[in-house]
């Protein structure tokens, strides 16, 4: 009996967590896989993912570049994923670990709701993300499986969008206005503060205004970080979570803002 715990179910089916978790492994002498390490011991590979509040909920924006060392690996990566109909996750770091974790979380939330005949609470979902992160810690410490997520959700009780970010061990923090992760995010952190202090908090902005600011931030990140794709060649990914659930930002709106920003 798993009582809605998906990890336990996988164990019962002979699929222990090694299926989705990168297990600790002894590194060979001289082997070093820590090339993706960033400042302050935070494991964040090349990318920039941004979450900001707006007047109806939370907006997530991400560039589309995936890198492997110095090489551009892929220019159409999707770094904002739907955990369920009311929760988004934006990921920075090891793709393999992050995608397996997201797949696990998607199934875990659905499994809980369907088996227990009640929805998993927002608190329950956030704890599950922590648990997955703490389990992938051995991989993170070896430099092969670390990732950092930003979780955005619409809180039905408080009737507002909420943003949560995590450290690599799974500690959870809530952000009032914005969150960002990835190598480009560190370089633009001060710009978020500048926007809030000069233009007002993100949560009072319309979707269009918030989108304009975040696309510009992404473009600045791209100019300071080679591993961030920016808005020149590929349209960034943008999704929202509001009282109506998760939705894609209309492509026309993205294109028109891209055009205006590139002209400026």
């Amino acid at each position, binding site marked *: 009996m798993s009582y809605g715990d998906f990890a336990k179910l*996988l164990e*019962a089916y002979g699929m222990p967590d090694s299926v989705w978790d990168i297990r600790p492994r002894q590194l060979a002498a001289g082997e070093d896989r820590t090339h993706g390490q960033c400042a302050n011991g935070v494991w964040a590979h090349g990318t920039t993912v941004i979450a900001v509040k707006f007047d109806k909920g939370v907006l997530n924006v991400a560039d589309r570049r995936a890198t492997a060392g110095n090489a551009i690996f892929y220019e159409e990566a999707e770094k904002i994923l739907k955990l369920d109909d009311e929760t988004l996750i934006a990921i920075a770091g090891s793709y393999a670990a992050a995608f397996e974790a997201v797949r696990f979380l998607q199934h875990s939330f659905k*499994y809980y709701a369907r088996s227990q005949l009640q929805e998993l609470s927002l608190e329950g979902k956030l704890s599950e993300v922590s648990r997955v992160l703490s389990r992938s810690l051995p991989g993170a410490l070896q430099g092969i499986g670390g990732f950092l997520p930003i979780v955005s959700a619409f809180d039905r009780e408080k009737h507002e969008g909420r943003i949560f970010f995590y450290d690599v061990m799974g500690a959870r923090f809530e952000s009032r206005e914005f969150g960002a992760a990835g190598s480009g995010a560190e370089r633009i952190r001060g710009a978020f503060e500048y926007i809030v202090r000069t233009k007002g908090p993100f949560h009072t902005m319309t979707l269009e205004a918030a989108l304009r600011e975040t696309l510009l931030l992404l473009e600045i990140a791209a100019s300071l970080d080679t591993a961030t794709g920016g808005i020149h060649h590929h349209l960034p990914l943008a999704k929202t979570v509001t009282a109506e659930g998760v*939705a894609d930002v209309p492509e026309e709106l993205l294109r028109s803002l891209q055009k205006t920003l590139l002209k400026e």
Partner: protein
Amino acid sequence: MAFTPYDWQQTLRQKADYVEDRLREGSPIVGLSCHEGILLVTVRRAHQQKIFEIYDRLAFAGLGNQSDLETIRQLAVDFAHAEGFARSPQDVSIQRVVGVALSPAMKRSFSDPLRLPLVVRGLFAQLGDTPDSDLFYLLNYDGEFSLTYRFGVAAGTERAREMMERVLVEFTKKVPKRDAALEKALEAWAVGRHEASSALEWRAVLSEALKTGMVEAAFLERVSRRERRFRFLSDQELKPFLPR
């Protein structure tokens, strides 16, 4: 004392009689394909849920003991999610859930003379991209199952099932819209319930049943932005179709 083949046969018969007796009074289940998706309809006693979401495109409804429905439901949900994660959601099919995960286990349980039989008859539905690819599986307490298209029914007796099928065969030759399908599903339910009711006409059967029970109707939505396509129809959505 020796356990002879005769005893074994006798046990099976007694078990079957025991289950059939308990299913006889059960509230029928109607599953119906329509343009917009699949409808599953029954009338239940106030707090006993009879229709359940199993996986992204799978739903289950059943009659029988609530605890046995739970057993089947949990097995199906567990199998579907473990498989959906290990392989992919597209690889979780009604055929695998019913034919591979449930049927053999139910058969084993039913043929074991020392085990209490499951009192359950279930209807599984799988939503396809078009009404033609929707599937319905009827699963019996002894593990036997059968596949139908366009609609599926589960009832307490063989006769009730046949009567319900008669209502639906003609109707489903053309794929209906959801509203028409809902109305027909309620009619089919009442026809199946007729045996256990004193009322003569199907609307009267339904009215009588609604004095102590309530309509439970779930919908698997064919075109949806949502990840989870299963939802229950609200009282407001049902109201226009119920007798006043």
